[in-house]
């Protein structure tokens, strides 16, 4: 018994150390960028982790330029709209896939998997041509559409896994209680699938927010340019000025919405929401 607890304590210690190592490895670059964003141009290259002279000039600079603020608005708008549409469409498709047996179901699942695996790089040029012809180039819908396309398979897969966990009896019960198919979905199934919906929303949002490839090919001006692209176009006040500090500040700023988004929805991902539904 004594040796047993001893080994578990030691094992815990070992695992704890390993965990700390991984977390440090992952977080140090992020913290480094945060630290750079607070440094003055003179101390930028001094190699110190904690800035000797703190300054908020970098943040002032990026928010003074219209370029960055505009890109931030684009990013938030495009990502939110794409997420909303992808989750709503994905929920309906996933519900059908998990509940109904319709002809072509396997094909649908297969095709959506195919889309998810397709290398996006190879689609960029055709998309560029198509969007120019259709007048979608450099517009919000021009980015929202491909984002939805590539986010949908992800949404469908995650959501159908969640829907499958919800006992079918609940739906039958709702129907017997006088609900239409739509009411059964909205009032019984959707609330129970909420954790799945939020998980999917987070994943899709991150995917849209981080995208660089589509954003750089399918935009040309501030009209629809998103933050990751805008960052790459950053220049200093003059051509002799190095924009490193500003880029770091912008990088810190664009991680904030993601962290907020995850924190906000994580509270709603309550596990065991369906407990108590069927027997015990």
């Amino acid at each position: 018994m004594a040796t047993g607890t001893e080994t578990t304590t030691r094992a815990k210690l070992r695992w704890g150390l390993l965990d700390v190592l991984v977390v440090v490895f992952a977080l140090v670059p992020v913290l480094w960028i945060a630290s750079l964003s607070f440094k003055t141009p003179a101390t930028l290259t001094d190699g110190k982790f904690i800035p000797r002279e703190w300054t908020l000039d970098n943040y002032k600079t990026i928010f003074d330029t219209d370029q960055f603020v505009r890109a931030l608005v684009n990013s938030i708008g495009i990502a939110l709209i794409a997420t909303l549409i992808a989750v709503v469409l994905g929920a309906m498709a996933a519900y059908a896939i998990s509940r109904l047996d319709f002809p072509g179901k396997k094909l649908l699942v297969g095709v959506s998997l195919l889309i998810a695996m397709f290398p996006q790089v190879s689609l960029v040029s055709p998309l560029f041509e198509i969007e120019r012809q259709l007048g979608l180039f450099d517009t919000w819908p021009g980015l929202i559409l491909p984002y939805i396309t590539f986010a949908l398979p992800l949404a469908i897969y995650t959501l159908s896994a969640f829907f499958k966990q919800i006992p079918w009896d609940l739906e039958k019960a709702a129907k017997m209680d006088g609900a239409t198919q739509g009411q059964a979905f909205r009032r019984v199934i959707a609330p129970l699938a909420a954790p799945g919906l939020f998980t999917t929303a987070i994943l899709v949002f991150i995917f849209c927010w981080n995208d660089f490839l589509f954003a750089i090919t399918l935009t040309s001006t501030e009209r629809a340019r998103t933050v990751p692209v805008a960052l790459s176009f950053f220049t200093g006040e003059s051509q002799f000025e190095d924009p490193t500090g500003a880029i770091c500040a912008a990088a810190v700023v664009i991680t904030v919405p993601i962290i907020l988004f995850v924190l906000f929805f994580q509270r709603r991902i309550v596990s065991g929401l369906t407990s108590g539904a069927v027997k015990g």
Partner: protein
Amino acid sequence: MADIVLDKVSKSFPDGTVAVQDVDLEIADGEFVILVGPSGCGKSTTLNMIAGLEDISSGELRIGGQRVNDKAPRDRDIAMVFQSYALYPNMTVRENMAFPLRLAKLDKETINQKVDEAAKVLELTALLDRKPANLSGGQRQRVAMGRAIVRQPKAFLMDEPLSNLDAKLRVQMRTVVSRLQKQLGTTTVYVTHDQTEAMTLGDRVVIMRGGAVQQVGPPQELYDHPRNLFVAGFIGSPSMNFLHAAVQDGSLHTALGDVPLGDRVRRELEAADAPRELILGIRPEHFEDAELVDDDTRRRGMEFEAPVDIVESMGSDKYVYFTVEGEKASAAELEELAADAGAADFAGGGGNLVTRLSAESAVAEGQSRRVWFNLEKIHLFDPATGRNLTLRDGRAAGALDD
């Protein structure tokens, strides 16, 4: 409230399997009918068809005189209690019970009043603000019942509502269900695989096998006058004993001795296509310790002697297991019953004889004992068709019937 009529209702699936075959059933207004049978007999499918959760392949279903084949469940005005309870976990008990009323667009006051009423009947008042996750199995079951009774539907459908409860609670809830049904007087169709539930609850019992109705009647009638081998073996606990019997010169040669036959049965066996071998069925309570039988009774039966295997004293009487030699009774029905009950529970077809003797019997394990059995109460079955040959006008008449 309404009657339910099934007119040649069948269910077949696209792959050709027939789950339910030509079920004819008339359920009177306010009647409590039990559908019972082993798993896969089509009882749940039948219930789902009445509910509208499954399509009817052919035949007609009428509720309150109206054809409802093509009506959605919500337009049939019937409530259902599921085996899994199917409570909405995101709603409180009150919201669960109010759900059907809210869908029916009743005003808040009426809803609250009806929910409170139903909660009082089911003793759920103290639990109204809890979520299903914080309820015990029995409480969840009552909430499921409450959700069904709250909107006073035309009929209740119950799909094995008690099978997830432990044995003690099941007996308790059985009386709750029974009392509730009598109190409300609502037509009820109740599906179970438990023959004890079927016997104790229903006004009438429908026994199903392989998608077809075997026999319909009050529990006692099914017990006393089974129409075929399947019904005889399914109803009763412990189940009826089945023995192989060979027809020989107007009497039956069995492991318990030669059983004399009355004229009626003999005439039937004289037909050209009559079976040469029969299955003899006797219920455990139709045996008695030969020492305890008076002369008058003795004349109505016959005696045999067999070694005692096990004695189980129940206080009120004794279950005594005898080993008898001879061929085993075999028929498709018996195999099915044995598979359903698990070999241990179903002694029917084996070389074991289950008898229920008086508590005063001095029987002891390891001894040999003389036992009397009642010839007026035995049943004879045709192993090929399962038909009960001792029935006269639907009543069991025993072997000696003239």
